[in-house]
């Protein structure tokens, strides 16, 4: 055993040593140790450097209140920064690193910042680094960002496993201390479904390991018996689980830490589990944090909270010092002093700021043999990397001074209830005069939320247990269960009365640290008040007090107390800053869970996907779909492949998988009337066996989507949409039907997945179909342009529609999805004689751009039919959805965009997203429009594109450029009609 362990039983198992490293050096701890306890036991008190001044910092708190001992665990992609050393159990081989130091923890060159402290005062980033020119901040920023900060986040992907899960319960109890356990007992005994969460790995919270009796039973025994009973009653007990936020609808966010480092056995186990807990009722039993005292150098390693020193001794058999000085303004530290002394530690002195104390306190000080200085205060802690001595003086006669040797200054400034979760719900905490702190007013809470223990204003052991039990009974009553009999717990030591005394701001050092994580001193608060930032929310933003991962857990109440003195306000009238979730830092990995990589979203594959994959097609994601982009032949580039594929469609025949097109069955006696209202063009006259291209508008008259609808029967239409627009169109139809015309007898079913779709396009497409479906007449008379026919086969009905997106003679063949690959392969084999080749989305795009057809690049939700030159499709004879707002004059003025074609003058590729401008690269001038789609045109042998350009600009076209300043590309373009090829449409009329 090392010299800082004391010989007493505790939560660590000395039979099981654990080796770990801290900044590369190996240390030995034991099973049950946290990183903090194991390092303290090795005499390590320097854990890190502070945020701004790079002051040496050590352990201050016992658990989650720790503001300074922040560490990083692991390296590279597995590194998790900003963890509290006090909450992480050590495991064999764990790699622990200190943070915010360079080049090393002991010799931190950036501690020079301490000398620059006057420059880094409150609001320094608004003032100090602002001159002399506007660009100065840019000069200073990298230095400040390097110098100030916490742990570094890895930029490599995290390949560790995380999980997500849901929980439902009657009552969620947050806090597994004695209050929460008592609440759980009452609720579980009533037969309720109980979930009890606590962020520690042991039950009992602050009271775990405390030597007290509860109604005659040792406290530790009561805790373990109660936990066993809860398990037997079916309660779910989640330890190492932080309830980090409360959200609408009784939803609570929690993260369970299952392990801190990945296992080494190769089995992929989740590190953390993100739980969404939906509870009918919740009980906040979140306890309280001890407040620090304010004096110069109160952030020095070796200065810690009084109950923290007691905690390390009781839980981990660790002596935080050999000569302990207790510094307090309230009675609670006397309990810690008694416990430390009884364990054999040397409590040299008890400094109490109060002018007088109770007889009980006096006799306790005598009992433990400590020098008792009542009405005294600590002026300063001495030491460089660790406290060596403290200077104390009498408050009302500051000439009376003493210097006391000490390696551990244990302080208590009273207790601050953890009201964060109530604050998440929007509840403003109220000031409790006796507690000297803000608590939750139960009358302010919604009926499903309850509080007990310190959060409700009680600190002593029996009141917490009784209050917790009563809260559990109340939930049972509200849920209609029969609550058990109440309990009347009593304690042996309990809590000695008398509450903390506020420090007089005049007697305190300006260098006293208030916010240990953000390096905010009393001086900063004073400066902020002088400069007018005296409201709590202003103070927070100006000084950063209460920000960061710490969220003011140990600074809030001290700051508010001083603020009231500085501004003469009544503390009752002050509203503390709103606490924001998460309560402690949450890794993104936990929130994302397993939804990473291929599992980030669902994948949709067409019926012919396996065939494409077998061909080695280059695939591309389109929304959730994966589509063949091009079928590269050996040695071919993507560009070569799509030029070949598109050329083959113009020359011979190609086949393209269009199964991804949205397909909606629109059926019912009023289907025709409905379509006539949602499409801008006339649908009432569409005969059975015909298809029509239609344009659909939103409420505001902008284009929602386009596509063809096929009339298959009297009351039976098959609507197709763009691949990306399928979901939005379906929702649009449902909305108009339900909210505008519920009287129409029509229904919609998405049949996208039911049909496989393939486009057979090219001058030889009719011959391919004729051969594949021998006996069917595909002549122009039998199947004219826009004609739809159905072919019955033994396996199912095949639909063939003569539609052209490419501008060639072309057919769309739809068959049941299960027949997709069969028909596809059939068409390919029958087409072999005609030179058929499959083509992908890249060739599809080239072909449609040559024809000037609009698609996703143009239909971006901001364009009207007029912008797209599709105003000819707006019926003048009938009403259609979106028509009224198309009547706005502004939609036709000279600043409106119009669809045009572009040809690159220097034959270099254009880029979608480039802006169309008048000027050359040196002086481009304002944007006149944007390039929406680009391709190389095999038919024209030109680099072409579609663009939306202002009407005004088109009228004085004096030569334009496509500008992409980000890539440094500026190309001269010629504006032409967007119908690059065959504007009269002769090619499809073969």
């Amino acid at each position, binding site marked *: 055993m090392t010299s800082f362990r004391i010989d007493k039983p505790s939560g660590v198992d000395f039979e099981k040593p654990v080796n770990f490293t801290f900044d590369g050096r190996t240390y030995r701890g034991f099973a049950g140790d946290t990183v903090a306890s194991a390092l303290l036991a090795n005499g390590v008190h320097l854990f890190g450097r502070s945020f701004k001044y790079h002051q040496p910092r050590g352990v201050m708190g016992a658990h989650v209140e720790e503001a300074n001992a922040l560490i990083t665990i692991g390296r590279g992609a597995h590194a998790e920064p900003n963890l509290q050393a006090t909450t992480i159990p050590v495991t064999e081989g764990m790699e622990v690193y200190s943070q915010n130091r360079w080049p090393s923890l002991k010799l931190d060159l950036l501690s020079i910042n301490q000398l620059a402290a006057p420059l880094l005062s409150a609001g320094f980033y608004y003032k100090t680094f602002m001159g002399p020119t506007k660009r100065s901040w840019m000069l200073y920023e990298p230095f400040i960002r390097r110098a100030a900060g916490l742990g570094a986040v890895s930029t490599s992907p995290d390949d560790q496993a995380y999980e997500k899960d849901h929980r439902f319960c009657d009552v969620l109890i947050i806090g597994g201390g004695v209050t929460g356990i008592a609440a759980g007992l009452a609720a579980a005994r009533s037969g309720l479904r109980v979930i009890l969460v606590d962020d520690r790995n042991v039950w009992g919270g602050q009271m775990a390991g405390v030597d007290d009796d509860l109604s005659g039973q040792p406290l530790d025994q009561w805790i373990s018996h109660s936990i066993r009973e809860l398990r037997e009653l079916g309660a779910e007990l989640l330890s190492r689980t932080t309830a980090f936020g409360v959200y609408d*609808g009784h939803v609570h966010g929690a993260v369970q830490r299952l392990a801190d480092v990945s296992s080494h056995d190769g089995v992929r186990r989740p590190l953390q589990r993100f739980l969404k807990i939906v509870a009918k009722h919740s009980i906040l039993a979140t306890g309280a944090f001890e407040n620090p005292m304010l004096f110069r150098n109160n952030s020095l390693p070796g200065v810690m909270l009084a109950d923290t020193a007691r905690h390390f001794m009781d839980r981990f058999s660790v002596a935080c010092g050999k000569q302990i000085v207790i510094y307090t303004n309230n009675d609670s530290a006397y309990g810690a002093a008694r416990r430390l002394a009884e364990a054999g530690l040397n409590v040299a002195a008890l400094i109490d700021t109060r002018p007088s104390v109770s007889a009980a306190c006096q006799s306790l000080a005598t009992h433990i043999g400590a020098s008792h200085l009542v009405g005294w205060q600590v002026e300063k802690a001495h030491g460089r990397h660790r406290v060596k001595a403290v200077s104390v003086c009498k408050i009302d006669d500051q000439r009376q001074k003493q210097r006391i040797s000490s390696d551990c200054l244990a302080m208590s400034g009273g207790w601050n209830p953890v009201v964060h979760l109530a604050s998440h719900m929007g509840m403003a905490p109220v000031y409790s005069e006796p507690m000297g702190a803000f608590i939750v007013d139960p009358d302010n809470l919604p009926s499903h939320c309850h509080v007990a223990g310190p959060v409700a204003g009680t600190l002593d052991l029996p009141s917490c247990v009784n209050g917790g039990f009563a809260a559990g009974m109340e939930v049972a009553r509200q849920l209609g269960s029969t609550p058990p009999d109440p309990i009347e717990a009593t304690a042996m030591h309990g809590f000695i009365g008398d509450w903390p005394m506020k420090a007089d701001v005049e007697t305190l050092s300006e260098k006293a640290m208030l916010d240990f994580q953000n390096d905010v001193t009393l001086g900063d608060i004073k400066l902020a008040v002088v400069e007018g930032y005296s409201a709590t929310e202003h103070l927070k933003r100006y000084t950063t007090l209460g920000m960061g991962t710490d969220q003011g857990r140990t600074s809030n109440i001290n700051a508010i107390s001083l603020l009231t003195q500085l501004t003469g306000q009544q503390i009752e009238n002050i509203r503390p800053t709103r606490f924001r979730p998460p309560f402690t830092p949450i890794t993104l990995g936990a929130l994302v869970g397993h939804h990473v990589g291929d599992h980030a979203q669902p994948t949709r594959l067409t019926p012919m996907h396996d065939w494409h994959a077998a061909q080695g097609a280059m695939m591309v994601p389109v929304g959730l779909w994966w589509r063949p982009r091009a079928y590269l032949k050996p040695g071919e580039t993507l560009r070569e492949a799509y030029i070949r594929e598109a050329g083959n469609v113009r020359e011979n025949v190609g086949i393209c998988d269009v199964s991804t097109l949205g397909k909606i069955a629109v059926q019912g006696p009023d289907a025709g009337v409905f379509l006539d209202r949602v499409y801008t063009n006339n649908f009432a006259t569409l005969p059975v066996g015909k298809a029509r291209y239609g344009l659909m508008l939103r409420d505001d008259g902008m284009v929602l989507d386009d596509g063809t609808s096929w009339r298959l029967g009297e009351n039976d239409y098959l609507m197709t949409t763009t691949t990306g627009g399928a979901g939005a169109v379906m*929702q649009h139809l*449902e*909305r108009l039907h*339900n*909210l505008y015309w519920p009287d129409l007898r029509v229904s919609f079913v998405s049949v996208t997945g039911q049909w496989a779709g393939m486009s057979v396009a090219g001058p030889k497409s009719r011959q391919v179909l004729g051969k594949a479906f021998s006996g069917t007449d595909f002549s122009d008379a039998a199947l004219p342009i826009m004609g739809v026919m159905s072919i019955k086969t033994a396996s199912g009905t095949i639909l063939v529609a003569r539609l052209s997106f490419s501008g060639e003679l072309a057919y769309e063949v739809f068959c049941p999805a299960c027949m997709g690959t069969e028909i596809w392969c059939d068409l390919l084999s029958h087409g072999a004689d005609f030179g058929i080749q499959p083509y992908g989305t890249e060739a599809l795009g080239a072909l449609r751009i040559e024809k000037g057809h609009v698609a996703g690049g143009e239909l971006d939700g901001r364009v009207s039919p007029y912008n797209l030159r599709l105003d000819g499709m707006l019926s003048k004879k009938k009403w259609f959805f979106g028509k*009224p*707002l198309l009547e706005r004059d502004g939609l036709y003025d000279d600043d409106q965009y119009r669809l045009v074609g572009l040809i690159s003058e220097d034959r270099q590729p254009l880029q979608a997203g480039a802006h169309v401008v008048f000027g050359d690269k040196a002086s481009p001038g304002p944007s006149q429009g944007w390039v929406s789609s680009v391709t190389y045109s095999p038919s024209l042998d030109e680099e072409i594109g579609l663009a939306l350009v202002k009407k005004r600009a088109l009228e004085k076209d004096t030569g334009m450029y496509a500008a992409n300043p980000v890539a440094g590309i500026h190309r001269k373009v010629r504006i032409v009609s967007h119908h690059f090829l065959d504007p009269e449409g002769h090619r499809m009329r073969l």
Partner: protein
Amino acid sequence: MIIDCPCCGRRPVSEFSYIGDAEAAKPDMHAPAAEWVKAVYTRTNPRGMHLEHWQHLHGCRQFLKIQRDTLTHEIFSVELVGVYASGEGE
């Protein structure tokens, strides 16, 4: 937020899609453009009680009229609207 769908029961908000203000006037097909401008663009955006249309998109796909407090997100009533509102329909 949890919405109690009349068809499916209590479901998380992620299953639903916000459709729009249910208090906005729904103009007649042939109403003048000014009325449509009002319906499409003029919103009260109240702090507090609001009537809204939602769709249970990843559920029964029905349209719901929901009375909701925009400040607390508390939901006071949920009713089916549209084709199946009367409980009949096809």
